[in-house]
């Protein structure tokens, strides 16, 4: 998963980014002002945007309006110091999906971020299931047929993204864009390595294949045949 943080307080942005990277294994980009934030939000694929309201160059509210006007469906979590009813209502009405008031708890921020990503991809439960595969996004554990499977951090991230979009064709570029920050292009060759690693760990000793490759199109996570 890839998160955009738009926050002008550098240390706060850095702390949130560190927490998201370490605890959730997300890729994080940081923008320090509204203009940069808008540019990144419009030019890259993000699974969730964390937005501060008081921003230089462009106000957070304005930015939110621009993002929503352009038809972006990315969930937006607003982080604000204002907790009066009027401003909360105003920002939800402007297209925000959720809000958190400063000072906040990093654990809560993480939980809300995960929930927004889930909902953005149409997954209501924090435990994702595909066939007999079970992926728990809360403690980042994977089981197949009740058997626990140990994955590397990168393998888990690939599987997590695929599990959020079961039965859909996910291209290599999409995976790259959602798993790495802005310099994802450098990593273009490693996806195959993770996929083969995942296949070995998941499908070994099982009669039913879960990860399927569509040559020239991408990958599908689904129970059974390779035809979507």
């Amino acid at each position, binding site marked *: 998963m890839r998160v955009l943080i738009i926050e002008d307080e550098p240390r706060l942005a850095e702390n949130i980014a560190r927490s998201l990277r370490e605890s959730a294994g997300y890729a994080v980009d940081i923008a320090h002002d509204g203009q940069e934030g808008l540019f990144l939000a419009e030019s890259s694929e993000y699974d969730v945007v964390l937005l501060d309201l008081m921003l230089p160059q462009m106000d957070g509210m304005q930015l939110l309006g621009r993002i929503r006007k352009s038809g972006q469906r990315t969930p937006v979590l607003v982080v604000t*110091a204002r907790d009066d009813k009027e401003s909360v209502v105003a920002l939800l009405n402007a297209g925000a999906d959720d809000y958190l008031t400063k*000072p906040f708890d990093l654990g809560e921020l993480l939980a809300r971020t995960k929930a927004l990503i889930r909902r953005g991809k149409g997954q209501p439960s924090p435990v994702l299931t595909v066939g007999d595969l079970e992926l728990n996004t809360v403690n980042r554990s994977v089981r197949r047929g009740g058997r626990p499977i140990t994955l590397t951090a990168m393998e888990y991230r690939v599987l997590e993204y695929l599990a959020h979009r079961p039965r859909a064709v996910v291209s290599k570029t999409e995976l790259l864009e959602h798993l790495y920050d802005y310099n994802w292009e450098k990593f273009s060759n490693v996806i195959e390595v993770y996929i083969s690693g995942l296949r070995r760990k998941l499908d070994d000793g099982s009669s039913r294949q879960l990860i399927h490759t569509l040559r020239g199109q991408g990958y599908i996570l689904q129970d059974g045949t390779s035809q979507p």
Partner: protein
Amino acid sequence: MERHSHETGTQPRHAWRLITIVVLSQTLLAAGLLFTGIFYTHQRLLSTLDAGMQGRAMSVAALVRYTEDASGNVYFDETLMPSSVDPAHPDLFAVWTERSGILAHSANWPAGLELPPTGPDHWKFKFNHVHYRGLRVSRVPVLDREEGKTFRPQSLTIVYASPMIQLDDQVRQAGISIALSSLLLLGATVLLALWGIRRGLLPLQELAAEAALVSTHHWELHLPNDAQQIKELRPLTQSMTTMLARLQHSFDQQREFLGNAAHELKTPVAVLKSTLQSLLQKPRASEEYREGLEHSLEDLERLEQLLQWMLRLARAEQWAHGALRRDLQVIDITATCEEAVERIRHLAKSRNATVHLSKNGPVPFRADPEDLQLVWINLLENAVRYSPEGGSVEVAVVRENSGPARIIFEDHGAGILAADLPHVFERFYRGDPSRTRATGGFGLGLAIAKALVEAYGGTITADSTPGKGTRMTVELPVG
């Protein structure tokens, strides 16, 4: 609820006091009236009685006749005596002649009646349990004169007395009727006063009910029609309206300040909290802990600074609101400027800026030098921070012969946009938030400066040309 009942409990008490005063004074008046009335009636009746008795005594005298002979003796012709007015208590009379003593008396004449020796012609005595008023007429000539008779005429002394029962009755009746009508009047007055007070207080009560609806969420005072139309209430309603407007203004200001302050405090707290929480997320190398703690300390210092600024502002504004009641010495404005310039040198040096102070002699002013220095330092910091690298700031202390002292701070920085200019003295106002972090301000310095200058009865104004620089002018009422 309790307050409400207390209020309604005190209002009637005041009204009752008023009514009591009215009733008391009217009772006093009525008592006076009763007394005078009785006295006057008594006097009038008495003089009427006296006149009647005089007449009767004279008619008694007229019944004294000379005998047909020439002896000059007299007799009393009792047959012609008129009957008494009050048959139950007949009048008393007696006639004396000079020569032969008592000539005649009424049938009920008491033998032992003591006449006052001399003195008043009228007196009062008790006979048969009844008060009588006596009249003594002396030296009454015998009225019976026959033509041609010559002898030494005699003079008579007549005592006539009438019972005073009727008079007393009449006086009593007059007293009762005066007392009754007074009482009636008194009752009417009380009722009228009660009605009037209730009626008069009604608009006040309506006004109070409306005023009770005013709260920090609902500032509008709806004035009832009655309260608006009554001329006597106008000063009250007017001062209530202006008071509410002033209260609302300062309340809104406070609320806005509180909102801004909360906002400004929350961000550094959020940074601090996130630093510590992310540090605790997993075991880390001691270097990482060290770095995290250093960051936390920096953030904490910033928070502390912000708190200090806010307290300074609160203090300055408290003075501005009239609490400036300190024993102040006369100090020199120029000297405080010199001190401030000296204290800003370090910051100026770090930005390669120069500060130049032009002055002509001391300018005496009654103030706390610390306050003035704080103003100058805030203005200087602003000027230095917004000056370009290596820029210059000019400070001038100008004192014309009469009029205020002017202290001018001029920089050659980017200037302030015309849209921002009216707001620069507002608390937490920052034209461009991006510049704040770079320059490290909280948006409170100018607000503090303004509050302090105004506390000393001065003014502060900002002029700016974007791209050329900013000039801040402080005017202080010296002399």
